[in-house]
C-alpha cells in the first residue's frame, strides 16, 4: 500500500517537474526573443530586413553591419563608428567603479569596525543616496562640475558616477562587514596592525564575494547610464550609450537597422560579459550578511 502511494507521489513529482520546466522554458524563450531578433538582424544585409521577416535567419550571412557600427557609421556628424565612444565609456567606467568600490569598502569598514557617535545617522544619510532620483541632482552637479572646471570631461563623469554610486557600495560593504567577526579586528589591533593594515590584510582578503557584487552592480549601472552621460559629457567625452542614441537617431540617409542592431549589441556586450563571468558570485554575495552564521 505504501509502495503504491509512493508510486503516485513519484508520478505526481514528475508531472510537476515537467510543468515547471515547460513554464521556465517558455519564459526563457520569451526573454531571449529580443536578443535573437537583434543578433539575427545584425547579421543580415539591409534589404533582407526590408522584406519584413524579422524572425527569419539570414539568407546571406554578413558581418558588414558590425564593422560599420564599430568603425564607420555616422554618429551625429562624424563617420567614426562607436569605437571612440566605446573607449570613452571604458575610461569612464573603470576608474569610477574602482573608486566607488574602494570608498564603499572603506565606509563599510569604518561604519562597522570603527564605530563612532552618530555612525548610524551617517549611514542613514548615505542610504538616502540610494533613493534620490538622479534628475534632482542634475543642476547642483552641473554647477559643481562647472566650478571645478571638470564640466564636459571624462574626469567629471568619473567623479559624478563615483559619488552617486557610494550609497549602494557603502550599503553592500557595511552589511557584509557587519557579519565579519570584530574579534579578528581586535586581534589585529593587539598584533599592532594599523587602520589600513587591518583593512588590507584582514578584511579585504575575505571580501571577494561582496567585491564581485559591487563591481557588477556599479559596472552595469555606470556603463548603462544615459542621464549623466547625456547631461555632463562634452564633445570628447561622450559615452557609448549617448553615442548609440546618436547613431540610431542620425537622420541622414536611410535607417540602417542592421547597423543599429549591431551597435546596440556592442553597447550591451561588456555588461553581459561581466555578468556571465562573475554572475555566480552575485547571488552568493547578495545573500552574504543577510543570514548570520
Amino acid at each position, binding site marked *: 500500500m505504501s509502495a503504491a502511494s509512493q508510486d503516485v507521489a513519484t508520478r505526481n513529482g514528475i508531472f510537476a517537474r515537467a510543468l515547471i520546466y515547460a513554464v521556465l522554458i517558455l519564459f526563457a524563450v520569451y526573454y531571449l526573443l529580443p536578443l535573437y531578433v537583434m543578433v539575427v538582424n545584425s547579421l543580415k544585409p539591409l534589404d533582407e530586413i526590408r522584406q519584413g521577416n524579422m524572425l527569419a535567419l539570414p539568407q546571406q550571412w554578413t558581418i558588414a553591419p558590425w564593422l560599420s557600427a564599430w568603425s564607420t557609421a555616422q554618429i551625429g556628424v562624424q563617420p567614426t563608428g562607436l569605437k571612440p565612444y566605446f573607449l570613452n565609456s571604458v575610461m569612464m567606467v573603470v576608474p569610477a567603479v574602482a573608486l566607488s568600490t574602494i570608498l564603499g569598502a572603506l565606509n563599510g569598514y569604518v561604519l562597522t569596525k570603527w564605530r563612532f557617535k552618530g555612525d548610524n545617522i551617517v549611514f542613514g544619510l548615505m542610504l538616502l543616496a540610494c533613493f534620490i532620483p538622479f534628475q534632482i541632482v542634475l543642476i547642483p552637479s552641473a554647477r559643481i562640475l562647472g566650478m571645478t572646471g571638470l564640466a564636459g570631461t571624462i574626469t567629471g563623469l568619473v567623479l559624478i558616477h563615483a559619488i552617486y554610486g557610494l550609497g549602494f557600495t557603502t550599503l553592500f560593504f557595511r552589511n557584509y562587514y557587519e557579519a565579519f*567577526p570584530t574579534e579578528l579586528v581586535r586581534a589585529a589591533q593587539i*598584533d599592532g596592525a594599523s587602520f589600513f*593594515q587591518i583593512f588590507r590584510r584582514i578584511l579585504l582578503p575575505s571580501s571577494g564575494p561582496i567585491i564581485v557584487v559591487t563591481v557588477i552592480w556599479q559596472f552595469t549601472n555606470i556603463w548603462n547610464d544615459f542621464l549623466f552621460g547625456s547631461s555632463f559629457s562634452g564633445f570628447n567625452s561622450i559615452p557609448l550609450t549617448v553615442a548609440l542614441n546618436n547613431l540610431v537617431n542620425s537622420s541622414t540617409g536611410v535607417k540602417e537597422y542592421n547597423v543599429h542592431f549591431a551597435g546596440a549589441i556592442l553597447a550591451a556586450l561588456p555588461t553581459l560579459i561581466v555578468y556571465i563571468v562573475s554572475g555566480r558570485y552575485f547571488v552568493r554575495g547578495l545573500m552574504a550578511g543577510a543570514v548570520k552564521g
Partner: protein
Amino acid sequence: MSFLKISNLYKNYGQVEILKDINIEIDKGGFLVLVGPSGCGKSTLLNTIAGLEPITSGDIAINGNSVAGLHPSKRDIAMVFQSYALYPNMTVAGNIAFGMEIRGVPKDEREKAIKQVADILQIGHLLDRKPSQLSGGQRQRVAMGRALVRNPQVFLFDEPLSNLDAKLRVDMRTEIKRLHQRMKTTIVYVTHDQIEAMTLATKIAVLKDGLLQQFGTPAEIYNSPANMFVADFMGSPAMNLLSARLEGGEGGLNVVLDRPSDKPLALPIKMANGALGAYSGKEIIFGVRPEALTDPDGADRNAKSLAEGECLIEVVEPAGSDTFAVTKLGGKEVVARLRADAAIHAGQKTRLAFNLDKAVFFDPKSQLRIA
C-alpha cells in the same frame, strides 16, 4: 610589588555603569581568573586591560607603568579570544607571525620563533594549513601560539575553552595550567565556569553587575565567601543556603532549622566566634556545602565542630563516585554528599553529620557573611 594593578576603575557606556570601582592587584607570574555570570562585566574588564575599550576613570598599571590610554599593541600583552579570531586568509604560520611581520621582525627570526612556539604546542605539522582546515582544539592551540610568540608581560584569555566539547575542555585546561607553570607569565583569564576558575587560578575575582564581589585565593573564595552570591556561584553542586535561627543553648549557640514534618533541628556550634554571638536569637542564613553534610561515617574526623541530626531523605542520586541525597531543611531542598556506598534510601530517616567548621553564616538582609 604587584605586577598588574587595577585601581578604582570605572567604565560607563553612556549613562550605564558597566564596571564600578574595581580594585585588583596580582603578583608577577600570578594567574588571575575573572569569573561571574553573563553580563557581569568580566569581559569588559579584560578588554579594558587589553586597551580594546577605553576606561572612564581609574588606572591600569602593568609592572609599575600606567598603560591606561596606550594602544593595545603598546601594552606588551597578548590575547586569546573566545572565537580564537584566527585570520582566515592566512596559514597557521602566517597567523602566528603576523604580529612580528607588522613590527618588521626579519624573516629568519620570525621562522625561528614560529618553530619554537610550534614545538611547545605540538602544532608543527599544521603550520601550512588554513584555520578552516583545523579542528576546534587545533585552532585553540594556534590561538595560544599566536599569543605565546609575542612573549608578552601579560596574557589575556577571554573564555578560551567555551567553544570546545567537554572532554577537550578538561584536556586544554590542564594544558593551560601546565603552560603557565612552565612559562611563569602573568595571566588574566575570563570564564563563567567556576570549576575552571578554581582549578586554574592563583587569585579569583568574582564579579556581579559590574561590582567586584570578592577577590582572593581559590581557597578563600570557596571556604569563606564574602556574601551569598559568591557562596552560591562557586562550587558544584551549589552551597546549601538555608533560613535558620541562632538560639542560645547549653555550651554555646545552636543553629535551629525548621523542618516540614518534624520538630526543628538544632545543631550546636562549638567554636562560635564573637561576631556570631551578636546574632543570637535572630534570623540568619546558614550555608553548608554538600561535602560538609555527609553520613556520620564519612565525616571529616579532624573537624572540631561536628553536629549530627536525623533527616528525612526525599531523593537519592547515585553519581558513581558519590551519592547525593536530598532532604528538606529550613524550607529549602538541601543536598548532602555521601560516600558512594552509603546505606541510604529515599523515604527513610537517616543520621547526617554537619561539619560546622566549614559552615558559613550570612546576614539575611545585607547578604554579607557574618562568620
